[in-house]
């Protein structure tokens, strides 16, 4: 029987009895070197739909109640116990280091979006019928200037956010976003520092003013700090 893995935890952290995963199947622990991997039976890899993704996440969140797990990316189906355990044991040093990094910590996400602007809502015309070469080049230059301004703004916001939360964020991942998004950041925060971290992000949002919208999500299992 195949297995769908959810997360890797230090040995000794068993799933709660009655915990169900995908397809309502019970989640059971498999020993893999110094770790346990929480998994449930699945004849085939599950479809990547929202219900399955939510069910996967719910099991990882249950693990967060007991320890800080390494979440497994959705889609890591194995044909059987032996194959799954071997995949983990083969990487035991790397996984032990990752578990040490996330121990006692949780992840938050910050997403910075452009404030609503009428011109931002209108999609760019795909291929405008330019009257001549000069019009085309002018339009090209305009678009490049907009892109340069966006990159400068993204860098500035990233740096300001970093300075705002660095006291509480042990690690950080930054991703630029396409419009109307600007930047998405993930922060690894000590358990117990949640409220101080949130206050720091609120202060950042207040400081950047009405030009941007700032959303915080979390706490999350440390998905962004495990690879």
């Amino acid at each position, binding site marked *: 029987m195949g297995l769908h*893995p959810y997360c*890797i935890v230090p040995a000794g952290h068993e799933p709660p009895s009655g915990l169900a995963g995908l397809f309502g199947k019970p989640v059971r622990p498999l020993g893999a070197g110094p770790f346990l991997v929480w998994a449930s039976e699945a004849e085939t*890899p599950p*479809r*990547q*739909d*929202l219900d399955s*993704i*939510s069910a*996967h*996440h719910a099991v990882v969140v249950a693990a967060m109640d007991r320890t800080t797990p*390494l*979440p*497994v*990316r*959705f*889609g*890591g*189906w*194995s044909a059987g116990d032996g*194959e*799954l355990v071997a*995949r*983990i044991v083969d990487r035991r040093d790397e*996984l032990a280091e*990752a578990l040490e990094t996330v121990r006692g910590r949780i992840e938050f*996400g910050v*997403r910075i979006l452009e404030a609503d602007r009428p011109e931002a809502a209108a*999609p*760019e015309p*795909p291929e405008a019928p330019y009257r001549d070469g000069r019009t085309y080049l002018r339009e090209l230059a305009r678009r490049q200037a907009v892109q340069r301004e966006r990159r400068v703004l993204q860098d500035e916001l990233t740096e300001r956010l970093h300075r705002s939360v660095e006291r509480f964020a042990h690690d950080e991942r930054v991703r630029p*976003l*396409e*419009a*109307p*998004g600007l930047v*998405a950041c993930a922060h690894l925060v000590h358990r117990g520092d949640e409220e101080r971290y949130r206050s720091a992000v609120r202060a950042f949002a207040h400081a950047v003013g009405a030009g941007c*919208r700032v*959303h915080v*999500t979390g706490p*999350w*299992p440390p*998905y*962004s700090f*495990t*690879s």
Partner: protein
Amino acid sequence: MAERTSLAEHDELTLVELVNRVADRGVVLGGELTISVADIDLLHVNLRLLLCSVDRLQRLELGNGTAAASSSVREGGA
């Protein structure tokens, strides 16, 4: 009203963050992922359409006359 809109947007973004994390991050333990979700950020305006099923996007892209539908989804978020 503005607050309700903001809450709805926050719920949508939480879903985007969820899907990005679960399907695109975490320890990779083999297996085959059927679709890249890297474009989900482009899609948050049309999130409800997409997140009915990521698989549905694949079908949209593969079906007849769907290039326009797929493109409009992407540009809707761009």
